[in-house]
């Protein structure tokens, strides 16, 4: 398990289109991201219910952050966060 695997998971949680492609063909998506064989095997057996719920929860959390801090985007841009 590596940084690449975490990066793949992060994208899976955040990017709706990437998640849709993954759900359509998990192994292919994992392989095309350059993950190792055991990583791909792990992703083939991913907790699909949890993935759906987690992705939704993360999305709502991101949305609530945006609502709470309307100025944060500008400050982040200015500070090149």
């Amino acid at each position, binding site marked *: *398990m*590596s*940084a*690449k*695997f*975490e*990066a*793949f*998971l*992060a*994208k899976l*949680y*955040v*990017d709706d289109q990437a998640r849709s492609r993954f759900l359509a063909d998990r192994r292919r998506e994992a392989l095309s991201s350059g993950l190792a064989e*055991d*990583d791909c095997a*792990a*992703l083939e*057996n*991913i*907790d*699909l*219910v*949890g*993935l*759906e*719920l*987690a992705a939704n*929860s*993360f*999305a709502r*959390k*991101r949305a609530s*952050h945006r609502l709470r801090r309307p100025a*944060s985007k500008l*400050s982040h841009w200015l*500070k090149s966060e």
Partner: protein
Amino acid sequence: MNDRFGIGWRPELAAGILSNLDCIDIIEVIADDYFTAPRSKRRALNTLARQVPVALHGVTLGMASAVPVEARRLERTARLVEEVRPEFWSEHLAFVRGGGVEIGHLAAPPRTAATIAGAARNLAAAGQIVGAPPLVENIATLIDPPGSTMSEADWNVEILAAAQCDLLLDLHNLYANAVNFGFDPHQYIDRMPRERIRAIHLAGGRWIKAKSSGEFRLLDDHLHDVPEAVYNLLEYVGEKTCHPLTVILERDGCYPPTNALLNQLDLARQALRRGRERRRTSPVSEAA
């Protein structure tokens, strides 16, 4: 036993908290709210810290990751810790970003040797830069982390040992994971090195339903009262530990009247007291 009971600081609760400091031993402040705050807010935080002991709670470092935490994030944590001088600071055993993508919340990393090593490395760096290592908190997860090769309890124990850190045991996170993934939270508590359990989080949640399968899972949303099962776990922790604990109630929204929150703190006091009493009267429960 000088257990302490406190509450998470939220601006909406300011009036109630400051009016009832005689019932509150400590306040937990979200550190990330102050990293880019104007001077006036940081000064107000310092004033708050002079009135009541404060603990700082980070949410965006992403400690439990194979990826090193950026030094600049640790440095700004260090600056805040230096300024506020909290009782302690804490972070989560989670990853929050990867490949340049911000997840926006705490995600459970794969429970593997690599993330144990990564967490230990990050915690060591944190201790060095900030000046003291954080307490590390177990997180709730709606997804069984893919690629995991060990249980949550084993993974946490390994991290605590490798990093020589203490544990902020979030009992609702534990409870939620236990009901969602079918393990006994008491066994988890039994696995933890007791002397390392330094602080406790209490919170509430609600059941959510997956559209695809209709399956329900418990979400740790911090928007509901602490359920009885969590108080029971607190009582169990009280029975198993023999040193003071700091117990903090977390509430992020749907705020009830202050009295209701203080009442939940009282329930926590009673639960912990019951556990302590049970330990005192049944020393055989000390057996590992």
